[in-house]
């Protein structure tokens, strides 16, 4: 019972902070709301038994990626300018809302068309670092893991080359 209540609390808070991201005028406010949303998502991952993914969410998303975002916002010294998002909502917003509504309706139709059995019990070590590590390095995911490391190296070199004034 308590678990269900906590799940719904985290779900509502995640959605509220997600909507805040989209409606803020100031990019810093949006970034802070996104960090809050990531923390509540990490809590939902813990409730779903994904402990390693939850820790990675806090370390990589809330820690590394959002620091990069806030660093860039402050580097560019962006001020609030132009109309507020609600005023700026014109033709683009009508198009955006209709396309997003179409996508959302498609997803709802898809998830409504499946019969769900309740979730079964899981092992005590489901989703721990040990279990994820065994699945990642002892199975078919070793090559994708190496490709991901190559991708990160390429992205790092590319970002430096793009943003540096003279190389």
């Amino acid at each position: 019972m308590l678990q269900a209540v906590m799940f719904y609390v985290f779900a509502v808070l995640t959605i509220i902070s997600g909507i805040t991201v989209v409606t803020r005028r100031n990019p810093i406010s949006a970034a802070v709301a996104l960090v809050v949303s990531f923390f509540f998502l990490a809590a939902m991952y813990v409730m779903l038994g994904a402990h390693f993914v939850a820790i990675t969410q806090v370390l990589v998303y809330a820690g590394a990626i959002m620091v990069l975002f806030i660093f860039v916002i402050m580097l560019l010294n962006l001020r609030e300018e132009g109309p507020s998002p609600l005023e700026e909502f014109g033709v683009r917003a009508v198009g955006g809302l209709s396309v997003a509504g179409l996508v959302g309706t498609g997803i709802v139709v898809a998830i409504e068309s499946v019969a769900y059995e309740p979730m079964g019990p899981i092992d005590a070590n489901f989703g721990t670092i040990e279990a994820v590590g065994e699945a990642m390095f002892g199975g078919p995911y070793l090559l994708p893991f190496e490709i991901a490391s190559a991708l990160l190296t390429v992205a790092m070199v590319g970002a430096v080359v793009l943003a540096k004034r003279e190389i």
Partner: protein
Amino acid sequence: MSEVGLYPVLVVSTILFTTGAIGVLSRKNALIVMMSIELMLNAVNLTFVGFSRHAGNIDGQIFAVFVMAVAAAEAAVGLALIILIFRHRTTVDLNHFNVLRG
């Protein structure tokens, strides 16, 4: 989580994904558009983890970790591009990014 089930997880994920899609399609600030993309990637991650728990299979969590790696690469390159464009145009308004010539 056996009391809650998979269905509410998918509903939360749908709402988050749609919110992110609205942000991508209707905002003009390039940084907020990138944050909305992160929101959409997180909604997909939530679906992966939810199905992983539902099926009792760890593969979905591994995919979630890969999505995070790709998101980190995308954020690094995307923000570098935004800095580069800002140097030329002194704005991050997407409506002003309408020429390919630098």
